[in-house]
């Protein structure tokens, strides 16, 4: 017995030793002076012209040299490889003057010919560059290089925010595209291990210098670990293995705050919105009476009035969200219209509006004029806790009106099939990520002919007069030369949307970040890439 007891003890000791070994999710060891954080999946491409996903875009941002950069903090366009740039009075000619002595990361010289080649390359149909569409008629764009430092771009028509468009065109060596391995930006792609990490190293020839004349970037490199699991990301951040987290869900924010309150930042409302909408598509396979509810303005307004947005922000986002009534966030000071008159929470008004529209209560159940009980499902995506909580709270709020709501979660592919292809859904709750403060980027959302016009996609002609008016106003702001006129047009669009409630805006989620106390030079911005927007000035304590 004594012998077996010893064996038992040894057995449990083996277990204890094994249990002490934690799982290692860190993809590689940190090099001296290297910054490390996680990205959600592999970048789809390192070709800056072919970027078509969030993570490729981040790699392009931190590696590319661009003629001008849209400063994410001040929200102004600043010269970068170009020491100056001018836009002609008619808005059709952009002239860039390059800095003298520019070089690529391999030491070769950078001239206007490289810039011209890169612009033409991005505009070629074969490149399938997303940025080409922003030129509206990319085929009509011509580029001239009168000397080695001057680049002149002729546009067939005026393009809103043309400066920002050049923020997305990486200048590469002419005829030598390198998949990010030769760049004029602060970093270059040094190593890529699929599903593990992307390692970037400092570009020794980067033109940038700080106020004291020290060359930038400060960090020797960046390692972007490919890690989907946010919980693991938090653990590694707490262990000091990651230096920043660019997007924290509210519950993880609170968790980190409890452990180290100095490491988390709440920047207030983001540009993103969370909204709910009803399927108004006439060709959807819903019964006719449901279509008529959803196409009824009174019904949509009543639903909007029944929702307690303060509770959504307080409970679903643990206070890290701001109630939303329009599609432009207060964080977007230039375009936000404070005077928009939108339906606020008012249960009595909601009931009265429904009664006027022919709805009535039968016991606790709301019924329409033809005695159909008002029952519908709200679809949302699985895996987003805050969204699911919001859906549950909305379910409760609408019960007060006598509506019966089911909340259905689907994985993204199944959800998108229902929304975009079969249109077999009643209501949906999703978010919209806005990456640009200029509302012109929302053109695809608001134009009635667009497939992304969610509540009734790809309308051949506007289904309602107010949609026709939105179409007209969006086109008007896109062609207007005067900022004030654009603002008036967008204010009117905001008011129409508030009146008609095709999207019932719920909250603006706050920008929640985590920053290691060791990371210096941090100036968080609301716009992507948030903490990494000034990546060349980030460094670890004790680094150079």
């Amino acid at each position, binding site marked *: 017995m004594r012998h*077996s007891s010893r*064996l*038992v003890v040894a*057995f449990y000791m*083996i*277990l204890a030793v*094994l*249990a*002490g*070994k*934690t*799982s*290692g*999710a860190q993809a590689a060891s940190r090099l001296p002076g290297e910054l490390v954080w996680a990205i959600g999946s*592999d970048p*789809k491409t390192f070709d800056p012209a072919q970027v*078509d*996903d969030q993570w490729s875009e981040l790699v392009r941002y931190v590696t590319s040299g661009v003629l001008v950069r849209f400063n994410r903090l001040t929200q102004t366009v600043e010269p970068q490889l170009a020491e100056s740039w001018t836009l002609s009075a008619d808005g059709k000619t952009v002239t860039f003057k390059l800095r003298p002595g520019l070089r690529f990361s391999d030491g070769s010289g950078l001239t206007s010919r490289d810039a011209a080649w890169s612009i033409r390359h991005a505009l070629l149909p074969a490149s*399938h560059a*997303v940025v080409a*569409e922003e030129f509206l008629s990319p085929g009509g764009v011509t580029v001239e290089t009168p000397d080695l430092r001057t680049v002149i771009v002729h546009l067939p028509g005026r393009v809103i925010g043309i400066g920002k468009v050049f923020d997305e065109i990486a200048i590469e060596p002419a005829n030598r595209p390198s998949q990010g391995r030769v760049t004029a930006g602060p970093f270059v792609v040094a190593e890529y291990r*699929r*599903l*593990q990490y992307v390692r970037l190293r400092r570009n020794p020839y980067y033109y940038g210098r700080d106020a004291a004349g020290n060359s930038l970037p400060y960090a020797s490199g960046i390692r972007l670990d490919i*890690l*989907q*699991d946010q*919980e*693991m990301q938090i*653990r590694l951040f707490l262990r000091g293995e990651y230096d920043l987290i660019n997007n924290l869900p509210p519950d993880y924010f609170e968790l980190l705050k409890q452990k180290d309150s100095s490491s988390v930042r709440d920047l207030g409302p983001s540009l993103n919105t969370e909204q709910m909408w009803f399927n108004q598509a006439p060709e959807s396979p819903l019964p006719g009476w449901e279509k008529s509810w959803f196409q009824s303005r009174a019904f949509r307004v009543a639903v909007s009035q029944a929702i307690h947005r303060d509770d959504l922000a307080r409970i679903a986002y643990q206070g890290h969200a701001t109630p939303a009534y329009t599609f432009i966030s207060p964080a977007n000071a230039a375009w936000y219209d404070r005077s928009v008159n939108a339906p606020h929470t008012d249960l009595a008004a909601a009931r009265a509006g429904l009664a006027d529209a022919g709805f009535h209560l039968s016991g606790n159940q709301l019924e329409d004029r033809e005695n159909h009980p008002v029952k519908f499902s709200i679809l949302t995506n699985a895996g987003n806790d805050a969204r699911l909580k919001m859906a549950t709270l909305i379910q409760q709020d609408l019960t007060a009106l006598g509506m019966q709501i089911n909340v259905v979660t*689907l*994985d*993204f*592919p*199944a*959800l*998108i*099939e*229902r*929304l*975009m*292809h079969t249109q077999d859904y009643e209501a949906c709750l*999703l978010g919209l*990520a806005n*990456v640009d403060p200029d509302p012109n*980027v*929302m*053109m*695809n*959302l608001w134009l009635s002919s*667009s*497939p*992304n016009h969610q509540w009734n996609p790809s309308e051949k002609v506007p289904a309602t007069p107010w949609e026709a008016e939105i179409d007209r106003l969006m086109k008007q702001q896109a062609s207007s030369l005067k900022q004030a006129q654009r603002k008036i047009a967008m204010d009117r669009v905001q008011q129409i949307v508030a009146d008609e409630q095709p999207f019932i805006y719920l909250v603006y989620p706050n920008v929640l970040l985590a920053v290691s106390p060791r990371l210096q030079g941090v100036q968080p911005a609301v716009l992507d890439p948030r903490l990494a927007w000034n990546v060349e000035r980030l460094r670890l304590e004790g680094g150079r």
Partner: protein
Amino acid sequence: MKRAVAAMKWLTRTSAIVLLVVVGSTILVRFAPGYFSDTREMDARYADVARAEMSMEAARSGSFPHLLFSEIGGWMRGDAGQSREYGIPVLDLIGPRLRVTGSLLLRALLLSWALAVCAALVSSAGRKPSLFWQAPATLLMAIPAAAMATICLLADRGGPVLVLALLLAPRDFKFLHRTLRKAWLDPHLLQARAAGIGRARLLRAHLLPSIAPQIGALASLSIATELSGLVPVEVIFNVQGLGQLAWNAALNRDLPVLLAVTMIMALAVIASGMAIDHPDQPGEWSSI
């Protein structure tokens, strides 16, 4: 001649299983909701690119028989196709992950066997079955792999090897414990013990050789059990292996990747089953 017929039978059976796996996986993924959709369709900036890719996929896999034949034809030519999610050849994606998963399974298998054999040897030597061993084994068998992995993660202790080992060890222990107890009670061993022959010598010379076939069968079952826990363990611990790849492929409706992973897993199970089914393998207790 008998061997050739047996080999043909085995080959036919294996091919039929693999074909069933291919057809089953293709049906499940191709007809899963969302096969012809892409999350980028919701992003106005990338929607056009996504729609163009989806149209190409629709042209490729619009007809199910055509899709099935093209997948099988690709495999026959040694081309597993391109991943829809990553846009690279499936074999390039699978190669590095196969090594990670193989290493994880092997380490977990060794650990679980070390634990199970040690525990079974000690517990089977006692006069009565000990609750000290049986209770934790029963408890562990009742905990799903995903729950064990989550507990480890929350406690910041343990890892994928330990969880897979703890998934296997109690099952292996129970089997070994029963087998060993039965073996210890065999008349010739009782007589040998009465004659004063040492336990170690009995174990080495009589007991282990007599239960070798059962141990072989248990080893093959262990592989199948490990594979069943692979997906949750790799996903929860973020292990860049085949289980995690299969999970992502299912979520993203990445048919070529999912087909490749399921075929590898099916082949692994078939290969492990060969140990049991081999015609030359001695039958139960035949070596005594």
